[in-house]
């Protein structure tokens, strides 16, 4: 059957996790599906959202919580967006300025030896600053509806820091984080690769903790389209998903990570030095100058461990964080929104056409596995990674309200 459309325009933001789109174009995965794809680098997530909603882009690289927030009407014009595929797991990190890292080391030398590092040394610094009447520290995230915002808040709150009362959280575009850190406008940030590695390489920042250390395999970006695009172009969407699944698998081959860094570094894509881009792909980036990270390819995951599968439980987790931080109230329809936006059915159909294994369940419990395990509820068994939260938390999508209310610090609406 012929595709409804063969020419597509897809948007992305300059980050290592846009790799499946870039690889699908540069390594011929779109082409072999009969697609001619124009990739458009966008200046902001708001642009991505509006252009996809209005049809100026057919689909895009999106922050995973964004299509959920758009559907709920709390992020721009309400629109019926869907996420038929995840683009990656992990990849982000929390970085602080070298000055703040030094202050944390002076305050709690032992706490700064720990891995994964908690925010307790930071809590001590914040308490001391408060006692001295100093202004609150400023941390930046990339968007209010981003895994980075929730990740930073989770890490801070675990150590007793209230992210809304004890410091200031601002929004800064990913590519500008390192410059603002260097200028002293912000004291820390949470952002995706390669910008943490860039701050370390520039000598302005130290990485405190990787996303992968906070939650073994946490969701990050998705591929998003509108529901009406999916309904009007089912075959085109299927072909696009097949190309992206193939590209994600290519990007995860250890032997391809070097070439991937060279492709992504290009000025059309991430536009950063190749060795900096490579540092978050061929292993984990150094925590600080002279403090190398582990030789771990799971720092960012594109394909392994069913990484491309849009787990409804991931959608529900994001919605619990929106509840926890007061972005939505108890009236929000958690299960209905997750079901409408995350579309494992579309992913499974595309994977089946490729003969690639896909999970047969839509949800999984997070924080359950301390070691590698196998997902047997799949079209073929899928090797899976440990999925613990650093605070020992456990998340079951069946009880979202209870989970959201189970944290000592939050801004739950009544």
């Amino acid at each position, binding site marked *: 059957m012929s595709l409804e459309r063969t020419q597509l325009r897809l948007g992305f933001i300059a980050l290592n996790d846009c790799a499946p789109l870039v690889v699908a174009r540069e390594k011929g995965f779109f082409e072999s599906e009969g697609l001619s794809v124009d990739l458009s680098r966008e200046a902001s997530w708001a*642009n991505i959202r509006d252009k996809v909603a*209005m049809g100026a882009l057919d689909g895009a690289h999106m922050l995973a919580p964004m299509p959920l927030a758009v559907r709920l009407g709390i*992020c721009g014009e309400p629109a019926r967006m869907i996420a038929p595929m995840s683009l990656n797991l992990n990849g982000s990190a929390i970085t602080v300025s070298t000055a703040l890292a030094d202050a944390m080391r002076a305050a709690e030398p032992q706490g700064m030896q720990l891995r994964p590092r908690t925010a307790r040394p930071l809590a001590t610094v914040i308490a001391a600053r408060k006692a001295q009447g100093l202004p609150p520290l400023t941390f930046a995230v990339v968007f209010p509806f981003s895994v980075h915002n929730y990740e930073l808040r989770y890490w801070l709150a675990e150590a007793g820091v209230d992210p809304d009362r004890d410091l200031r959280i601002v929004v800064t575009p990913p590519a500008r984080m390192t410059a603002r850190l260097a200028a002293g406008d912000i004291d820390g940030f949470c952002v995706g690769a390669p910008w943490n590695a860039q701050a370390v390489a520039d000598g302005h920042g130290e990485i405190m903790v990787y996303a992968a250390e906070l939650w073994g395999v946490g969701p990050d970006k998705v591929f998003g389209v509108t529901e009406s695009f999916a309904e009007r172009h089912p075959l085109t969407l299927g072909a696009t998903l097949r190309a992206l699944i193939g590209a994600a698998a290519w990007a995860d081959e250890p032997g391809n990570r070097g070439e991937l860094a060279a492709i992504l570094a290009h000025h059309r894509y991430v536009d950063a030095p190749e060795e900096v881009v490579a540092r978050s792909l061929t292993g984990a980036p150094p925590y600080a100058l002279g403090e190398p990270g582990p030789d771990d390819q799971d720092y960012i995951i594109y394909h392994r461990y069913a990484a491309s599968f849009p787990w409804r439980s991931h959608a529900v987790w994001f919605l619990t964080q929106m509840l926890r931080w*007061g972005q939505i109230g108890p009236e929000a329809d958690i299960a209905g929104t997750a079901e409408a936006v995350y579309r494992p059915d579309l992913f499974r159909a595309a994977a089946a056409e490729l003969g690639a294994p896909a999970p047969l369940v839509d949800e999984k419990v997070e924080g359950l596995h301390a070691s590698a395990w196998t997902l047997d509820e799949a079209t073929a068994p899928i090797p899976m990674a440990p999925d613990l939260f650093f605070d020992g938390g456990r998340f079951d999508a069946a009880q979202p309200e209870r989970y959201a209310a189970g944290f000592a610090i939050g801004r739950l609406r009544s």
Partner: protein
Amino acid sequence: MKVIIIDPDEARAALVAEGLADVRPLEVRRASSFEAIEGELPSFAPDVIVIACDSPDRDTLESLREASSENPRPVVMFVDRSTPGLAEAAVEAGVAAYVVDGLSAGRVRSVLEVAMSRFELMQKLRTDLDKAKADLASRKSVERAKGLLMKERGIDEDQAYSLLRKLAMDTGRPIGAVANDLLTFAGVLKGDGS
């Protein structure tokens, strides 16, 4: 009405500001980035913030709404939901407006329409300028190619031009491109194009 225009393209921002001159009463401030004007926000208290879509500051601006529950700064909505097609047209033109609650839809629309038409005008000016530059470059190439032909083939100017035009017609390419090719090949033959 108080309007802030944020546009990395300062010439375009100036054009938008100029186009708003008919709106009365009016106070306009412009900046190339949000950071440059952030400090003025509380005191200036804009009714509308017009921002270019190619500014990376849109995400920062949107997050102000998030912060507004604790910080009583007037904050913003993306264009006007009651006017069908306006948001699409604005995104197409490359401009977004964030509107403080309470401002009438009609006034927002007029500001946005000015911004959109000025963005398009700027686009046309730029395209025209590019075309004029290309035309000039092409004319220069044709002159040099004519000179080359006159010297090498011992023909006069009209004959040289006719020859170039014939080459262009035979190959179905613009005369400027044919002239460029000729100059390049001549350079290679002389050994300075390698």
